[in-house]
């Protein structure tokens, strides 16, 4: 993992103080409230959060996919030197697919049902490059081989509905890579897939990232899937990144109470039968009326009066690991304690065995 050396060069994705507000309903909804995110070339960052945490909204902002009239986007988004929020409509169309492209959760909805997959890839290549249809089709075929679609020649002429779920997701990845983008945005790409297919797609993404030097922003609610692909974790809650750091650090040593609680709420591995899961009380806050203090305060076990006063700033914990929390000391203790507890039980287990 050479993230540190890559960090020296300028990041390929740089988001500063992003705020996204939707004005469609009765009350404006603040879906994203000040997100800062940098992604280096060749790095995979996982944006993790529950529904309504703003992870997909952040991702879609990178391609400006939100309806223009009902959305207010503030802040600054720079991808490969382009100021995304300032692009005109023509420049935006050039940017989408060529610099950054996206794969979606449900390929059956994302692909056009009335064209073959091959036609869609050829169209996309010819929109960005002046090459002959035959040439473009050759490129499409190469892409299909690259994403390991069996009998690719025949599959190019298939309609999306004729393919299986895993195959469709591979086809969509091929489409996203058609114009050789530098940044791949993945919005829950494996959530709709079966377990045995999900791992195949995760491994494919990892391989492509290594071979093509792609920067990947991977949005998911599944920590397990994120661990398989990501160099860095960014955990979102109520429209902010509450904790960020190298995957290993965040998994082993979570310092925001929300991340900690999420890790403990997982029914994972060899849990004792009948043991209760550590659940997080309550529900995520209403994005139309966010509290003035920390958004997680009312569900947090470590809450103090100060938490309700203002939104906490990021606390640097070393090695690029930071958490927006006033109580990182308390979580550090809790993590150390649970580590001791597991060590103790394993000693007990070996003794009894």
């Amino acid at each position, binding site marked *: 993992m050479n993230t540190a050396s890559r960090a020296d060069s300028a990041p390929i994705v740089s988001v500063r103080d992003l705020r996204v507000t939707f004005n469609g309903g009765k009350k404006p909804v603040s879906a994203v409230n000040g997100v800062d995110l940098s992604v280096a070339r060749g790095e995979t960052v996982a944006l993790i959060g*529950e*529904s309504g945490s703003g992870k997909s909204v952040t991702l879609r902002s990178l391609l400006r996919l939100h309806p223009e009239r009902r959305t207010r986007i503030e802040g600054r988004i720079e991808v490969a030197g382009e100021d995304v929020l300032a692009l005109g409509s023509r420049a935006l169309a050039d940017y989408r697919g060529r610099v950054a492209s996206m794969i979606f959760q449900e390929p059956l909805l994302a692909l056009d049902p009335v064209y073959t997959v091959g036609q869609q890839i050829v169209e996309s290549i010819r929109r960005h490059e002046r090459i002959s249809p035959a040439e473009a089709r050759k490129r499409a075929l190469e892409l299909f081989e690259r994403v390991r679609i*069996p009998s690719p020649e025949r599959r190019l002429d298939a309609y999306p509905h004729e393919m*299986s*779920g*895993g*195959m469709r997701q591979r086809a969509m990845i091929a489409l996203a890579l058609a114009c050789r983008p530098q940044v791949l945005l993945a919005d829950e790409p494996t959530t709709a897939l*079966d*377990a*045995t*297919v*999900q*791992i*195949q797609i*995760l*491994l494919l993404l990892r391989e492509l990232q290594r071979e093509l030097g792609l920067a990947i922003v991977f949005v998911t*609610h*599944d*920590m*397990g*899937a994120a*661990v*398989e692909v990501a160099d860095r974790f960014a955990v979102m809650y109520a429209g902010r990144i509450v904790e960020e750091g190298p*995957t*290993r650090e965040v*998994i082993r040593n979570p310092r925001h109470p929300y991340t900690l*609680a*999420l890790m403990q*709420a*997982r*029914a*994972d*591995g*060899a*849990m004792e*039968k*009948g043991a*209760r*899961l*550590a*659940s*997080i*009380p309550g*529900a*995520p806050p209403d994005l139309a009326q966010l509290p003035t203090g920390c958004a997680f305060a009312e569900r947090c076990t470590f809450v103090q009066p100060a938490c309700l006063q203002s939104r906490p700033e990021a606390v640097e914990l070393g090695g690029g690991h930071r958490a927006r929390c006033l109580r990182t000391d308390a979580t550090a203790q809790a993590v150390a304690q649970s580590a001791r507890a597991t060590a103790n039980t394993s000693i007990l287990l070996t003794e009894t065995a």
Partner: protein
Amino acid sequence: MSIGISIEHIGVAADSDRGGPAQPLLTVNGLVKHFDLKKGFVDTVMGRGKVVRAVDGVDFRILKGETLGVVGESGCGKSTTARLLMHLIDPSAGEIVFNGETVGSPALPLREYRRQVQMVFQDSYSSLNPRLTIQDSIAFGPQVHGVPKQEAITRARNLLERVGLEPRRFAGRYPHELSGGQRQRVNIARALACEPRLVILDEAVSALDKSVEAQVLNLLMDLKEEFGLTYLFISHDLHVARYISDRVMVMYLGKVAETGPAEALFEQPLHPYTRALLSSMPSMDPDRRTEEAALAGDPPNPIDPPPGCRFHTRCPLAEAVCSQRAPSLKTRQRRETACLIHEPGSGHSHAAAVAAAVHAS
């Protein structure tokens, strides 16, 4: 059996136990469901046509008071099985025996069976009537079964309280006014309103966020204890299935691949498909990432399932015999496996070694 019938005649309550705690609460024998595909005129005349073999000969039992987890990929027939158990769709063949009585027989009419078996669905929103308040939704079932209205409402309010929704605040709300986790609590309360013995949970927590999922799982465990329930828990999430189940059944393309106690099955899977499924779970350890996928490709189409063992097209241990002979479920030490490797004398080269190992132990 003759005793059972005579008891029925002298009018003992239908939910009393037959055969004591050792008798399974639910026994399923040779359950089959084939869905017809659209046929052309010629096919109709000739009486042929393709069918989706969604469930193709499934046998299992659910013991009293246990949680049976059902896992498998999409198209394996786990949800169809649940719908067949509820008689939401009619089986093509097979019988369901509940508490010693065949479902649909005069001794156990469908209406009485449905009171004792309830279901919670994955989509918490579409499974509630949007025009009824949640209190009315919960009280509806008992009224159909003859409970007076006032009593049904009292029962509904008690259940709301029990699933953690303060009746004074929530009883008059409509489904769209609740969050996903709250709606799923309402669905659970509604399932319990008829005082069932078996609750079928079809991906009941799959649509919930992790933090809310843990709350609902805890609630389900508490309710099971309190009301002495039996669960059939269908899930694609193996972690959750392992956590909540006493026994787990693994399905593949409309057939049972393996059944066994949860811990034993997860620690020592016998069927090659179970092994592949388990090793496809992400590791949660950044230093031990998965390097190779256990299986290539997608599950085959249940319209034309492979001959012989259904898994042989993707199985790393497949041999010629696997495409010719379909394995049957073999029981050994409370575990059932449908794999030729575990069938002595099947002709699979591993079968002899396995048999020898069993003999040695």
